[in-house]
C-alpha cells in the first residue's frame, strides 16, 4: 500500500486553479522528485500535503488516514515533516535547540515534573539532548550546537532545517529546494546526505528541485508539474523520453 496517495487534489485561489487534479502516490522508503517550471504549483502541493492550505477538492490519504481538515501540527505528528524554500529556522535559538523543538514529543515528561525537577524531567532532557546531538552529527553540525541558528552559514542552515524536520521522526520528508543557493560541491554533498538520511532513517522523501541533472541522478520516480497538473509521472528514464515534458519543460530550458 502506498504511504501517501492523493486523488484529484486541487486548490483554487479566487478563480485561479493553483493545483488541479493532482494525482500522485509515494511508497515507503522511496525518493521521489517533484519538478516543474516556476509557478507550476510545486510549493502549493507541499502546502496542501502539510495542511498549510486546505484543498478545495480531492483527497489525501497518508498511512491509511485522510489528511483533510487536519491542522499542520496534527499532520506533522502523523509523520510528514518538511523544510521551506526560504529557510525558516528559529533564528535566535541555538542550533541544538532548533532540533530539540522537533524532538518535543519524543519525551513526555510533564510541566509539573519540569518545575519540581523530578527524575522524569532529567531523564527526558538527557534523552532529548542525546538524540539531538546524534542528529546534528549526521549533518556534521555538532560543533555548532551552541551557536545561534542565524549565525550559521547558508548551506548549514539548510542542513539544520532538515535535521529539525527529521527530529519529528517522520515517515515522509518533504524537501523544498534543499539545494537552492548552494554551489555545486555543496549540492553534491547535500545529495549524498539525503541518500544517507533515507537509508539511515528508512523514510520516504519527496523533493522539489530545479536542478534537473540532480533530480534525475538520485530520484527513483519523478512527477512533472505544469500549470498545477501532473504532466508526467515515472522513472527518470521515462520522464527524459516523454515528449510532453520535453516540449513543456526541458525544451524551453535548452
Amino acid at each position: 500500500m502506498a504511504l501517501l496517495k492523493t486523488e484529484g487534489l486541487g486548490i483554487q485561489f479566487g478563480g485561479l486553479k493553483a493545483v488541479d487534479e493532482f494525482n500522485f502516490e509515494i511508497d515507503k522508503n522511496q525518493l521521489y522528485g517533484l519538478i516543474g517550471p516556476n509557478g507550476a504549483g510545486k510549493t502549493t502541493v507541499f502546502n496542501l500535503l502539510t495542511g498549510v492550505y486546505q484543498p478545495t477538492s480531492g483527497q489525501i490519504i497518508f498511512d491509511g488516514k485522510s489528511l483533510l481538515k487536519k491542522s499542520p501540527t496534527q499532520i506533522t505528528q502523523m509523520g510528514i515533516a518538511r523544510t521551506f524554500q526560504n529557510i525558516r529556522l528559529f533564528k535566535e535559538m541555538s542550533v541544538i535547540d532548533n532540533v530539540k523543538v522537533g524532538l518535543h514529543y519524543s519525551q513526555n515528561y510533564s510541566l509539573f515534573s519540569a518545575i519540581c525537577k523530578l527524575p522524569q524531567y532529567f531523564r527526558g532532557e538527557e534523552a532529548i539532548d542525546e538524540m539531538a546531538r546524534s542528529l546534528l552529527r549526521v549533518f556534521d553540525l555538532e560543533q555548532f550546537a551552541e551557536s545561534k541558528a542565524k549565525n550559521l552559514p547558508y548551506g548549514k542552515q539548510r542542513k539544520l532545517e532538515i535535521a529539525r524536520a527529521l527530529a519529528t521522526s517522520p515517515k515522509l520528508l518533504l524537501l523544498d529546494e534543499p539545494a537552492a543557493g548552494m554551489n555545486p560541491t555543496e549540492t553534491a554533498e547535500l545529495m549524498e546526505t539525503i541518500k544517507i538520511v533515507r537509508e539511515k532513517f528508512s523514510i520516504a522523501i519527496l523533493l522539489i528541485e530545479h536542478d534537473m541533472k540532480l533530480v534525475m541522478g538520485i530520484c527513483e520516480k519523478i512527477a512533472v508539474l505544469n500549470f498545477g497538473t501532473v504532466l508526467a509521472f515515472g522513472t527518470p528514464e521515462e520522464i527524459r523520453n516523454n515528449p510532453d515534458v520535453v516540449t513543456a519543460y526541458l525544451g524551453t530550458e535548452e
Partner: protein
Amino acid sequence: MGFITQIMNGLSTGGMYALVAIGYTMVYGIAKMINFAHGEFIMVGAYIAYVFTTMLKMPIFVSVIASIIGCALLGVITEKVAYKPLRGSGSLSVLITAIGVSYLLQNLFLILFGSAARTFPTYMKSGTLNIFGIRITYISLLSLCLTLVCTGILLFFINKTRLGKAMRAVSEDRGAAELMGINVNNTISLTFAIGSGLGAIAGIIYGMSYSLINPYLGAMLGIKAFIAAVLGGIGNIQGAMVGGLIIGVAEAFTIAYISSTFSDAVVFGILIFILLVKPAGLFGKNVREKV
C-alpha cells in the same frame, strides 16, 4: 422622538471619532504602526485653538488654521524624530515609542497649562435646530457635516490625485513604491500631516462640544477612535468613518438606555467582538500568510 435624538447625538460624537479614526487608519495603512500618540495630537489641536483665540485674541479663522498647521507640523516632526529611526523594527519598539510620545505630550501640556480644565472659546452660538420635531444642536450638525466633507475631500484626494496614488502605492508595497520612484519619506510625512490636521479639527469640535479641555482629553478619545478604525477595517478610510459613527451611536445609546458607566465597556466590547468575529474589520480584506 427621543430615539432619533439619541441617534443624532451619537452621530455627532461619532463624527468626531470618525475624524480621529481616519487619521489613525491612514497612518496605519502607510506606516504600519499604531500611532498611540494620535489622541494627544487632538488634545494639542484643541489647546492651540484655545491659545490663539483666548490668550492671543486672534479671530476664529486664524485660530483654526493655526491649529491645523500646528498639528500637521507636530505630526510630521514626531514621525521624523521618533518613528522614522524605528522604521522596519519590531512593532513592540514602535508601540512603546508611540506611548512615550503620548506621555510626553500629555505631561508637557500638564506642565504648561496645569491639570485644571480650561474653558474652550465659544466659536458658535449654542442652540438647537428643530427639523420635523427632531432637535439637533448646531454643533452636532457642524460636526457631522465636517466629517462628511473631510472624508469626501480625502477620498477624492487619495483616489484621484497623483499624491494620493503615491500614498496608496506606499501603503500597498513600500519597497515596490520606492523602486517606482515614489519618495516614500515625503509620502509618509504627508500622511502624518493630513492625519494630524484632521485631528486638529476633531480637537476643535471636542472643545466646542464639551466646552472644557484638559491635557488628558486625547487618551480615551484616541483609543476609541482606534477602535473605530479597527471596526471599519484598518487602512480603510470609508470604514473608519462608518466605524466612528457606529461607535458614537453605540455610546449614545448606552448612556441613554443603560448607564453612562458602561459606555466605555460597550465600546471595548464592540472591539473584542469585531476582532474575534472578523479581525479584518467590516470593510477590510483578509490577508493570507505566505509559506
